[in-house]
């Protein structure tokens, strides 16, 4: 394995000379400017099926939210934990807590006949899962624990039905949360190596990561048009899988390659140094003038902007591929403030269509819908006993689910996280959105063509963003922004 780098030659060959990068013709917040390209829905299949599991989930959870008691906090027992001292008080109350029984009347009677493909077993499991989520949301941990004991025995992650697999991971995530609740500890422990290797598999079997990489690369390329000194800050570089493809294009640019500086951010200096070595060696082979600067910090925790070593005259691009595996950037408000200060020429942002903020139940419902969709997309391409599929589901998706459902949200820190980054950026005067170009769209299309069954994936262009999803559900959105300073 060549350090896990992939260069997708097919995509490169068909790149047209990139469009002039125009930003002054768009309106703010991607609203109703007539210069905007019309939203294009690209379908490779004439009838887009709705994701069945996802649809059922949406239907039932809507009902669920309606059934919830108005004021959730009334008359409920909250668990108390004794942490100091030698004896353990039995913390989990078993038996029927009054509050927990209120919202357990989910009717499965009015399910659309078209959902007949979902088996009884799967439906039963999801119903129990939802009841469990409600119990947790009202702090009825004893009841939740009991239901989770059931669920974790009944659902298998190797099952033939996506519903069952999804349930097994969600149940485990909630069980983990219950234990953390009792312990009063909720920060995460991550093995980055395990994450990186699973990401590589995900990159091979699913188009989402390549979509993120190639559309962002295109926007960065366009921003670097005719610039000789460029600097890319990758807020969470991991193994830097994204960059060789961009280096390749920059190396073969008509106007000649620029001098490239890259600042890679991440959690461990060892891993960053390793990534830097590999990128440097790749750049050298291409004959590029390249510098790598590792920064083992979270972007939002940088207090001294000079540590990023911005040089005057260089064109700055900041790239951020968001995920829910761990908290990569720290406090959101500080991150956005630092971005404002840096005033890059381009900020490429790829977001998951999932809100990291909100109450537990909000995150539960949103993530159930989201991950059901991804599980469905994997299930459509791989058999239930495929080990690669299992690796991705277990080491990546489950990790994200676990974080999203955990106490304190995905950052596991209790900090307020923005619900959606694009909205936050659009709301600030200092950033202006740059619509994803036709070339970026073309890139995305090429990537989709590499993945059978392409007819399940949906690519939507709207409001200046490119959104890749499965059937009707958008999963990842790519957008690009520039700073007021460049007007």
């Amino acid at each position, binding site marked *: 394995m060549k350090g896990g780098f992939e260069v997708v030659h097919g995509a490169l060959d068909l790149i047209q000379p990139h469009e002039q990068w125009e930003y002054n013709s768009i309106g703010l917040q991607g609203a109703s400017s007539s210069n905007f390209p019309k939203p294009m829905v690209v379908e490779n299949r004439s009838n887009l099926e709705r994701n069945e599991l996802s649809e059922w989930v949406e239907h039932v959870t809507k009902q669920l939210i309606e059934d919830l008691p108005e004021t959730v906090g009334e008359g409920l027992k909250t668990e*108390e*934990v*004794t*942490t*100091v001292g*030698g*004896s*353990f008080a*039995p*913390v*989990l109350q078993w038996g029927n807590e009054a509050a927990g029984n209120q919202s357990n009347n989910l009717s499965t009677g009015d399910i659309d006949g078209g959902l007949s493909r979902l088996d009884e077993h799967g439906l039963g499991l999801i119903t129990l899962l939802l009841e469990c989520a409600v119990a947790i949301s009202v*702090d009825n941990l004893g009841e939740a624990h*009991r239901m989770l*004991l*059931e669920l*974790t*025995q*009944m659902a*298998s*992650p*190797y*099952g033939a039905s996506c519903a069952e697999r999804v349930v*097994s*991971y969600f149940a*485990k995530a909630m069980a*983990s949360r219950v*234990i*953390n*609740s*009792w*312990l*009063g*500890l*909720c*920060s*995460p*422990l*991550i*093995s*980055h*190596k*395990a994450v990186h290797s699973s990401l590589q598999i995900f990159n091979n079997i699913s188009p989402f990561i390549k979509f993120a990489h190639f559309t962002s690369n295109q926007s960065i390329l366009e921003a670097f048009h005719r610039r000789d000194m460029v600097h890319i800050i990758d807020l969470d570089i991991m193994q830097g899988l994204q960059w060789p493809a961009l280096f390749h294009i920059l190396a073969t640019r008509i106007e000649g390659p620029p001098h490239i500086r890259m600042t890679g951010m991440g*959690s*461990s*200096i060892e891993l960053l140094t390793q990534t830097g070595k590999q990128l440097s060696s790749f750049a050298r082979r291409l004959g590029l003038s390249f510098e790598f600067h590792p920064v*083992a*910090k*979270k972007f939002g*925790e940088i207090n001294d902007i000079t540590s990023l070593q911005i040089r005057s005259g260089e064109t700055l691009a900041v790239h951020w591929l968001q995920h829910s595996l761990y908290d990569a950037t720290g406090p959101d408000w500080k991150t956005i403030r630092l971005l404002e200060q840096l005033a890059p020429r381009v900020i490429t942002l790829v977001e998951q269509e999932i809100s990291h903020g909100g109450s537990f139940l909000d995150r539960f419902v949103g993530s159930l819908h989201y991950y059901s969709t991804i599980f469905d997309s994997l299930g459509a391409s791989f058999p239930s*006993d495929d*080990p690669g599929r*299992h690796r991705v589901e*277990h*080491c990546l998706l*489950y990790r994200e689910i676990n974080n999203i459902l955990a*106490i*304190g949200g995905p950052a*596991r*820190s*209790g900090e307020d996280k923005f619900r959606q980054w694009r909205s936050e950026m659009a709301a600030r005067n200092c950033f202006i959105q740059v619509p994803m170009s036709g070339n970026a769209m073309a890139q995305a299309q090429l990537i989709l063509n590499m993945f059978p069954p392409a007819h399940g994936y949906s690519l939507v262009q709207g409001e200046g963003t490119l959104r890749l999803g499965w059937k009707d559900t958008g999963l990842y959105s790519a957008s690009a922004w520039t700073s007021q300073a460049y007007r």
Partner: protein
Amino acid sequence: MDRTLFTPKGTYFFHHPTQQSNGTQPDMQSSNNQPQTSHTSTSRSSDSGEPCVTGKWASSLLKECARAISDKDSSRIHHLLWMLNELASPYGDCDQKLASYFLQALFCKATESGHRCYKTLSTVAEKSHSFDSARKLILKFQEVSPWTTFGHVASNGAILEALEGETKLHIIDISNTLCTQWPTLLEALATRNDETPRLKLTVVVTASLVRSVMKEIGQRMEKFARLMGVPFEFQVISGVNHLGELTKEGLGIRDDEAVAVNCIGALRRVEVEERRRVIQTLQSLGPRVVTVVEEEADFSSSRNDFVKCFEECLRFYTLYFEMLEESFVPTSNERLMLERECSRSIVRVLACDDIEDDTGEDCERREKGIQWSERLKEAFSPLGFSEDVVDDVKALLKRYRSGWALVPPQQGEDHQLGIYLTWKDEPVVWASAWKP
């Protein structure tokens, strides 16, 4: 094992108004063995170390946690449970699985919810158990591993030899093997040169999981016996809470029958204090031969020493899980079922006090062959496995992947005290035969 590589990101506390915050950072350096006065912290240091998840991390973390529980070191317990909770997964590699299931038991112990947890787990397992799933599971396991077939072959050999020449055989089968042992025995009976004897098979079912599927199994056995041309009678005895209640009359043992008692994993389910009585009960049934097969582990002599019992439990189940991982494909549902079965046993042994229970809860406290032998010697004398039987077992093992071996009957003083199945040179299953 280097514990210094665990560096938590800093801990945060939410949703618990009773928590205190002060500045002590939990420290996982191995040199610091002092309990923290409080495990809370508001520091937000960035994560500089990777948790060392290569190698056998689960074992040391789990053992430390068990010791902390035994020492009643509250803050250390919390910290270790937290780490285990973060790193564990029942769907990951061996370490993650062991961490997950033992964490469950430790958590139950710390919250004194072991019995309720066990009951819930057993009830759910029973509900989702069907004849098809149970049968598929056992057969698949037998296909990939000699763990159960070892005992079957040894026991069948001993029974056939002991009952040679008899015309009316009555086998009392105290096991949960769903009669997978008997088709080969029936075949052997059918192909004997002399007249085929009559066989009565009485299955005594102790696990509630198995009761529900026995009817169908009985029908299949009768059909098979008909096919083999062996005159056959089948009956199931269930609803027996204590094996000590068995009687000749209750089992329908007639005086002209030659009785064999076959105990596969049955004795460990008896409460420890009851075991002597049960063995005497077996003696009272007047068998010509008694075959006993048990897993080679000792959860019994250390039952008042939590740490010792925990470590033995961990040792045994680590072997078992590793064996499962090497025998099945990674995404096997059957393996998952077997692992879940273990998880129930682990909770039962580690988180439940041994109280007398009306529902006849399975005890699960295994003993080693030597210990069982001491008990059985009080009522029976050892019967060695003949060379033929040993050869049969060896032939069986050849059909499986490498790693399995047989420790044959020892010569000298411990002669004839059973044979052992070994996995990577560790004895895992013990089979023995006894006579009055």
